[in-house]
């Protein structure tokens, strides 16, 4: 019978197979040949018979009730065998699979088939395909280990991969290859870090486009096979070297908080100057580039791209931030203000950008970290400002030699120039003064006429502290008139520095008015010394007598000599003051002299100074000439 004949044929073929096929894969080949040769020798039949004849392979060991399940299981088994053979060969090779793009494509296809087969197996209604599933799964693990290795190598050494095949098979990846448009220029400059960078709107492509698309393909398989976490971890590990090296090239050295605290300022200043561009490089170029790379490699594979990104960015981000933290914790001498403001501004300006880069749940902690460090630096700025106040307060009042001639005190010059410069960062300073844990400073009742921002209040406070310090210093001078000169000089200087600057805006008109009236008051007080001299010439007091002239001469001579050594730094003020002294002294003197001459018995009195002499004397006051 035909049926019989077919049986015989199949039996013969099976015999041949048995004798020829010493290995599973050879058997498979032969089976394939036969099944192509004759329709009757379908693979299913041959397989089925073979298994039934007891030649089953390792995965076949089922119970006795498997008779009806033969058909699907054997089909799965066959696929598995083919895949196993295909894959094992590739897995066992030493060199990179991706060094040859066709092999890579083939391998990926096999993995796809394998994943699909496992899905089918799991969906199959039979309870007993477990052994097959195990085999498939085992094969999948091996593929994944290999893919992981390839993935890592492709990231670490993208040059070892084969150049992208000119004509890609229109397989599963045809849809995605268009998505990537690469800028060749950027690609060439893989690490454009050594050059000074002014424009941070740059993205680095650390990997050539071919590698990116290869890596994406691998990542897709790994995620599909449930190896997404491994894939993300592998990414982190593989990128670590590149990121470390990039940061190392920025010339930052690790510094402990203690080192930062005890470092001399000029050294630290240099470190900060290096840190600011490095910080921008890391947060504006390196990390966004990393984000882009992750977005591409893990396109459509959430959340693994986010995991990979967060893991890779964390170390460089924290390294940069730890220095800022240390600076924020370090000493608060006022000269640090400007550099620390720069640091603060870099971090603050960055925060909005980070909203988008660190937006996912894995990296949002990094954004918070930047914000925390930023506010720590902010409150250290506040601290530095407070320190200025302390510095003024601590400036010793009694020194062995007070400022010569009642001139400008160095602290006035320092504080005023400092505040003027600080006003250049007015916005930032107001920001840190307003914010922070302690809230705005409350400095007693706020004068409603004063600008009321925290910074303004604080500066006004500093001015008060300065004035108190100067008041105390003025008392060191023995002559009250010299104290006045000292206060006038410093007051005038303060007024000049406030005028036409941001300081004036902050302190307000009312403040300047008050300061002006203080200076006028000191000037009035100064004039007392002359009033005393003039009082000698007073006519109604006991009449005009020659002795009075002698007293006057002595006073005048003594005072003019002394006061020539005093100093009025401001030229206009000096001229005005001389003028007003002349205006009060010379007419009184003239009147006295003429009255004196009118008295007959005094006609021969020797007049030592003519009024012109007196004018000349006064004209030489306040030159600050040192005693020889």
């Amino acid at each position, binding site marked *: 019978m035909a049926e019989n004949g077919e049986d015989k044929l199949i039996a013969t073929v099976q015999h041949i197979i048995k004798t020829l096929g010493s290995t599973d894969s050879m058997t498979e080949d032969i089976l394939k040949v036969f099944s192509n040769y004759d329709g009757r020798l379908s693979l299913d039949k041959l397989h089925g018979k073979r298994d039934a004849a007891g030649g089953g392979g390792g995965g076949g060991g089922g119970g006795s009730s498997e008779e009806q399940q033969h058909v699907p299981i054997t089909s799965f088994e066959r696929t598995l065998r083919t895949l196993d053979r295909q894959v094992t060969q590739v897995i066992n090779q*030493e060199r*990179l699979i991706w060094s040859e793009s066709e092999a890579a494509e083939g391998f990926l296809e096999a993995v796809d088939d394998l994943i699909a087969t496992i899905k089918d197996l799991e969906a199959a209604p039979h309870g007993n395909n*477990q052994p097959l*599933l*195990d*085999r*498939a*799964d*085992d094969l999948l*693990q*091996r593929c994944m280990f290999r893919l*992981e*290795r390839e993935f*890592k*190598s492709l990231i670490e*050494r993208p*040059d*070892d991969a084969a150049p992208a095949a000119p004509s890609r098979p229109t397989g599963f990846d045809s849809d995605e290859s268009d998505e990537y448009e690469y800028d060749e220029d950027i690609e060439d400059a893989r690490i454009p870090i050594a050059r000074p960078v002014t424009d941070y709107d740059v993205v680095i492509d650390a990997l050539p486009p071919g590698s990116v698309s290869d890596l994406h393909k691998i990542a897709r398989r790994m995620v599909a096979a*449930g190896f997404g*976490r*491994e894939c993300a*971890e*592998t990414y982190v*590990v593989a990128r*670590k*070297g*590149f990121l470390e*090296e990039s940061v*190392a090239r920025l010339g930052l*050295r*690790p510094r*402990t*908080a*203690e*080192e930062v605290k005890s470092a001399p300022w000029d050294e630290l200043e240099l470190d900060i100057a290096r840190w600011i561009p490095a910080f921008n490089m890391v947060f504006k170029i390196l990390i966004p580039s990393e984000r882009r790379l992750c977005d591409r490699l893990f396109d459509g594979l959430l959340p693994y791209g986010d995991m990979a990104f967060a893991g890779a960015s*964390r*170390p460089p981000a*924290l*390294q940069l931030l*730890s220095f800022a*933290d*240390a600076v*924020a*914790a370090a000493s*608060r001498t006022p000269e640090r203000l400007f550099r620390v403001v720069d640091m603060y501004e870099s971090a603050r300006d960055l925060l909005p950008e980070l909203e988008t880069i660190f937006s996912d749940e894995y990296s949002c902690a990094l954004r918070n*970290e930047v914000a*925390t460090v930023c506010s*720590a630096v902010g*409150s250290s700025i506040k*601290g530095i400002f407070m320190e200025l106040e*302390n510095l003024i*307060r*601590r400036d010793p009042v009694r020194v062995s030699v007070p400022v010569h001639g009642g001139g400008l005190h160095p602290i006035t010059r320092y504080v005023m120039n400092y505040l003027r410069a600080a006003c250049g960062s007015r916005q930032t300073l107001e920001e840190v003064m307003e914010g922070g844990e*302690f*809230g705005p*400073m*409350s*400095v*007693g009742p706020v004068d409603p006429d004063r600008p009321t921002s925290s910074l303004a209040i604080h500066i006004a*406070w500093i001015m008060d502290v300065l004035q108190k310090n100067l008041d105390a210093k003025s008392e060191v001078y023995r002559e009250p008139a010299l104290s006045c000169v000292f206060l006038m000089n410093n007051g005038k200087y303060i007024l000049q520095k406030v005028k036409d600057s941001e300081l004036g805006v902050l302190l307000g008109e009312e403040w300047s008015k008050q300061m002006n009236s203080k200076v006028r008051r000191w000037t009035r007080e100064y004039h007392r010394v002359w009033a005393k001299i003039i009082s000698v010439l007073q006519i109604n007091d006991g009449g005009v007598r020659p002795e009075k002239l002698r007293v006057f001469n002595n006073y005048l001579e003594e005072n003019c000599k002394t006061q020539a050594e005093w100093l009025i730094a401001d030229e206009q003020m000096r001229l005005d003051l001389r003028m007003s002294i002349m205006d009060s002294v010379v007419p009184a003197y003239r009147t006295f002299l003429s009255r004196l001459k009118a008295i007959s018995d005094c006609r021969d009195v020797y007049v030592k100074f003519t009024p012109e002499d007196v004018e000349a004397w006064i004209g030489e006051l306040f030159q600050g000439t040192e005693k020889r």
Partner: protein
Amino acid sequence: MPATDYQGSSVPFASLGRSILSIRRDQVHSMDGHDPSTEQELESFQRRVSDLFADLSSSPDQILSLAWIRKLLEGFLVSLEEFRVILFNHRAAVTRPPLDRMVSDFFERAVKALDLCNAVRDGVGQVCQWNKHVEIVVQSLASWCEVDESGAKKTRPFGEGQLRRGKKTLMDLNFLIMDEKESASASHRNRSFGRSKDPHKSSSSSPSHLSSGVHFRSLSWSVSRTWSAARQLQNIAANLNAPRGHDVTATAGLAMPVYTISTVLVFTMWALVAAVPCQDRGLQIHFSIPRNGFVWSPALLSLHEKIVEESKRKDRRNANGLMKEIYQIEKSSHQLLELLDGVEMPMGEEKENQLKNSVQELENVCEILKGGLEPLERQIREVFHRIVRSRTEGLDSLSHGNE
């Protein structure tokens, strides 16, 4: 846990901080005498610290667990806040010798703690990294145990591929842990970027776990390679002696809280270094606390002894950190690896149960770490910032004494 749970203690002090500043401006320098409220205040501070250590000692098997460490840090933060209040209340006295010297001495110690905070934080990051591997192990092995679609727990036997995956991840994990041990104990650390400088030279055929081990080398980002946690601890603890009688009287008793907070600081930092991996760990510090001098000293000393004992145990001597969960990870992963090595398919029921138990153990630790490491890290950051803040305030008020 939400981030706020340990910050709770700082809330009432935010407003206090404001008043500290505003009152400071008024230059009120009240001369404080020996009023009864001061006595009460100092006593309550001692009691607070004593409660903290009593609480920490209450369940001996919890010592050095993640939860215990968090409790310790919380306690430290609360104590520090109370100390701040005391300094504020006695700001005039603080500016006078010998108290001024004692207070600035405390802040000097506190600054040294900042670097320890950084190092320990890196260590916590390290443990996070390990835990990610543990998660993968658990994920690959545990998912096999309970595949259920209808809600019913359906157990599938372990598959070979699954086991292999678990084993590989465990080996990676072991390499990470070993690597940390090596780098932590190496006397001369070579922080080298050269390892990756010439990637072409490194072998492409090395198994992934080997190369990953090398790359995970845990050199901290925030401290230099010569930095040593052990030395830093010694610096913090150096010359910390209980105040003598005349110092106590000369400071109206205020020398006591200064000494107390210094000791709490030293102990907290010491316990952190004991618990968490960090560069050049070492626990040799000298605690010269009079056993009966303070209400809290017996509890603190006994905790100290227990931790020292723990560090000397044979199986812990080489540990990366004495944190209970780290130990459990090491133990369970070793155990699991051994089990996996001995597995022959098909697996017997007993073996399978052992395996499941082992995975379960690992999963339990993994969950604890997953929920606790991040809050711990935030807490360490909080300690850092609070130290900075109180030091600034403290130095500020000290400097006002010279007016």
